[in-house]
């Protein structure tokens, strides 16, 4: 009797050891391109985010850069007539890049508080953003909408619902989504966050990173422009002078009269 009890306890701990997070951490994530190299022929890339989760879960995938600060020129009507730059408007606590995708509309999956906490969607970003000058909530909403328009135009913001595909696989489900990685995204470290959602709650979450880095001549040129600007300026001028003279000589030899 006693040995049966011991055996049960042993099996219980053995099961915990083998399936340590059977109920909590079935979610996995992998980005196919976790190190994007910017070389001379770089024109953006694609990032496929794949993984597995418990079956029946909805999946939300978000890629962001750390929250930062952007100062932009603000256009408006001067004297009610002419469109011109009226000054600078500052946006704080906004990511430089923000790409979001999910299996279903996020408001159908999660409550407002959870959406706000995880910054899922433009409305949630608007909540956390600080905009100055923007005196009234109406003005803040107007300029945040313009900010989204500006970022989407630069292809660094995107909110595409229902793009994450899921397929059952044994007792789990595989998910995948492919993002067009914009060439406008600057070098840096980007975080890919995946949320498995069920019953109006985030049940599991997982993260991975995408590193975007300049390499080769691109890295050397941009480094030189910043670190050795006098030499960089000098080389730029000498090359331009040489090219101008060179082409002039070629045209003279090539049959230019007089």
């Amino acid at each position, binding site marked *: 009797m006693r040995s049966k009890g011991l055996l049960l306890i042993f099996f219980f701990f053995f099961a915990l050891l083998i399936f340590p997070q059977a109920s909590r951490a079935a979610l996995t994530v992998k980005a196919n391109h976790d190190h994007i190299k910017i070389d001379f022929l770089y024109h953006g890339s694609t990032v496929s985010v794949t993984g597995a989760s418990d079956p029946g879960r909805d999946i939300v995938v978000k890629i962001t850069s750390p929250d930062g600060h952007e100062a932009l020129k603000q256009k408006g009507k001067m004297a009610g007539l002419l*469109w011109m730059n009226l000054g*600078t408007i500052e946006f704080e606590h906004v990511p430089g890049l923000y790409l979001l995708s999910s299996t279903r509309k996020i408001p159908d999956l999660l409550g407002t508080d959870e959406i706000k906490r995880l910054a899922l969607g433009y409305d949630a970003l608007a909540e956390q953003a600080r905009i100055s000058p923007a005196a009234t909530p109406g003005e803040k909403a107007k300029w945040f909408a313009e900010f989204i328009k500006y970022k989407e135009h630069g292809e660094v913001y995107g909110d595409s619902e229902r793009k994450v595909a899921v397929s059952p696989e044994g007792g789990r489900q595989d998910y995948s989504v492919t993002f067009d990685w914009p060439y406008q995204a600057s070098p840096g470290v980007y975080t890919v966050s995946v949320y498995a959602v069920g019953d109006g709650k985030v049940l599991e979450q997982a993260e991975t990173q995408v590193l975007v880095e300049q390499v080769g001549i691109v890295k050397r040129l941009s480094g030189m*422009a910043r670190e050795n600007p006098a030499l960089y*300026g000098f080389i*730029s001028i000498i090359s331009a002078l040489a090219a101008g003279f060179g*082409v002039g000589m070629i045209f003279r030899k090539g049959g230019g009269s007089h």
Partner: protein
Amino acid sequence: MYLYLPVALTSVNLMIPVGLGLAVGLLSGLFGVGGGFLMTPLLIMLGIPSTVAAATDSNQIVAASTSGTYAHWRVGNVDFKMGIYLLIGGFAGGLVGVQAIKALRAMGNADFVIKMTYVLMLGIVGAYMFIESLQSMRKKKDAAERPAPEKDSAVGRSLKSLPFQTRFEKSGVTHSALVPIILGGFVGVLAAIMGVGGGFLMVPVMVYMLRMPMHVVVGTSLFQILFTCIEVTFLQAYTNHTVDFTLAVLLLIGSTIGAQIGTVFGRKLKGDQLKILLAIIVLAVTVKIVLDLTLAPSLLLGQGGGH
């Protein structure tokens, strides 16, 4: 084929800047303008940040104007003496203009003043050149055999009474040395305020105030622009780190060749024909800026810096 631009941090189809360079270089060789008033907005439309667009354009103008000056020098169309006097004035004027910009910014309405100065200058210069060259072309048609004696304006007469009169052989004119220095200074002030090279102002100043022949004006203007752009390129690279060498190379491949072709075409056109063509381009740019000012833009936010 796409190339990545390390300073502009964007990627472009390499045929586009080469083609733009060719077109603007052609205008440069034809009219003696740097073409910044065309090139910078086009580069911004390609997605290049405005500060990088302006700085890189000045780097490529170094190449185009070297190519153009060389081509014009070979056919004897560069007045180096006049060019140097204008440069001295332009340099001093640039320093004054930078201070003027600082004062305007402190007053808080710099952008408005800059835009209005730009539109007015382009509009007045374009309209004046257009009307004048049209009249002159008609006159020549009507009375080719009896050339009207050159009438000196009141301004012209008072300029003649200034000290330090000197002969500019290449241009075939005599002026006080102060005249090109002061006029160069005036253009320098305006160019610095507007943030442009000022070729579109310098050309009419040389034609109408210094009374230089159009073909010498083109060559001399290019010579003058070359030095201005060397200075601007260095300052932009050194202080703002905004020169994109890769983009400049793509642009100058087109513009150096364009400047040579422009010079060849220019020799086949008469002075008045050149003037009226330049006037039409300047007026078209004016209309474009006026439309930009009056039509609602699609985006109300833009990258910081530049104007």
